[in-house]
């Protein structure tokens, strides 16, 4: 198993909004990748964006600036 570390997690209400995030991050060279929504955040299914903690502010600013639909941005040890 990979080592647990503090990570930034962004959650989305729909798959489309998660893919929109991935697309935006690729276009703007923002770090991270899509992962299954961690069970600590929400039981069930869905996609979340995971990135290293130093990226949190850049990602939050990007979400705001681009008007990307998301549910929350938080930090978890995963």
């Amino acid at each position, binding site marked *: 198993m990979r080592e647990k570390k503090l990570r930034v997690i962004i959650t989305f209400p729909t798959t489309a*909004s998660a893919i929109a995030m991935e697309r935006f991050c690729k276009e703007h060279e923002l770090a991270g990748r*899509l992962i299954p929504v961690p069970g600590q955040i929400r039981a069930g299914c869905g996609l979340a964006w995971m990135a290293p903690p130093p990226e949190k502010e850049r990602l939050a600013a990007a979400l705001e600036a681009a008007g990307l639909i998301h549910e929350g941005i938080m930090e978890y040890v995963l």
Partner: protein
Amino acid sequence: MIYLDHAATSLMKPPGVMEAVIRGMQQLGNAGRGAYESALDASRLFYDTRLRLAELFAADGPEQVAFTANATAALNIAIQGILSPGDHVITTQMEHNSVLRPLYFMESKGVRLTILPAGADGRISYDEMEAAIASDTRAIVCTHASNVTGEMNDLKRIGAVCAQHGLLLIADVAQTAGTFPISMKEMNLDVICFSGHKSLLGPQGTGGICVRKGLPVRPLLMGGSGVDSFAGKHPSRMPEALEAGTQNGPGIAGLRATLDYIKETGMQSLREQELAYMWRFHDAVIKLPGIRIYGDFSDRAAMRAPIVSWNLKEHDAGRIADELYQRYGLAVRAGVHCAPLMHRALKTAGQGAVRMSFSAMNTEAEIDLAIRAVLKLAEEG
């Protein structure tokens, strides 16, 4: 076989569509059902296709585009998901059963239904449409183009009437999506229901619904959505709200390929070519003895879908279609084309009509063979 039934489905597909479907079958996982590459690839492909469709129809954004199996499914979602008992809805005699039957069903649940008459030329009156609006009117549901005559409704004009009276406009664009300009913003359209396999030239089993942002639509189907699995209610956010269960990944891959083809080739170029074939056929047969063509072809500048429906004397349309196929290999549609009220307006409910519908995928030689075939039948009487 010479295929002239494009209003039913586009048999000949643009280059790249079949390959995209096959690649989809080989490579796509289930969209929204995993964070591994093949599932993500399916989600990415769906998102790309939503983006292209949102751009094509000037919809409120990619998330406002939901995929369906066909235009009929989309129309059922819109009609059953928006109207409620006590609402009044206006539709037209030009409609396909994919509009009429869900409306009759909602009428049985307490929706008041007004069906505007079409004239002998298959056209409706916009004045009558406005006059039918009452205090309880919620929506107008109408087709962009008749699948029988090709006559088109002016959606921009109807949209302006809807805006003025605070009504919803739900449009069936099955016959026009892909070859005629459709702008949800400019036409004030709240919902459009499209087929992916007719003028969009994509695979059968594809279609969709575009919904204005903020307009709630009750889902017709509920189930797996890939999100909020412990919630007892199906998600209300678009597009998942209207996409329960596994979607048609390979079909959507083909749809994306045809959207690229249409963009590269140009919608106007495709439309001009198919209309050129329609006029070539129309002009060659219009004056033949015993031929009756349905619809109003008097204004050559008027927008119309590339369809010519006709009869020869009092011959049953099915018999003529069979002769055309058996003797000349012409694949055309006979009968009432699932639009029974339109045939009542045209007074062809008993005889039906022979429908020829054209595509840019046809050739001039094919059209000329169709002309020669009709000339021969007319000559034989």
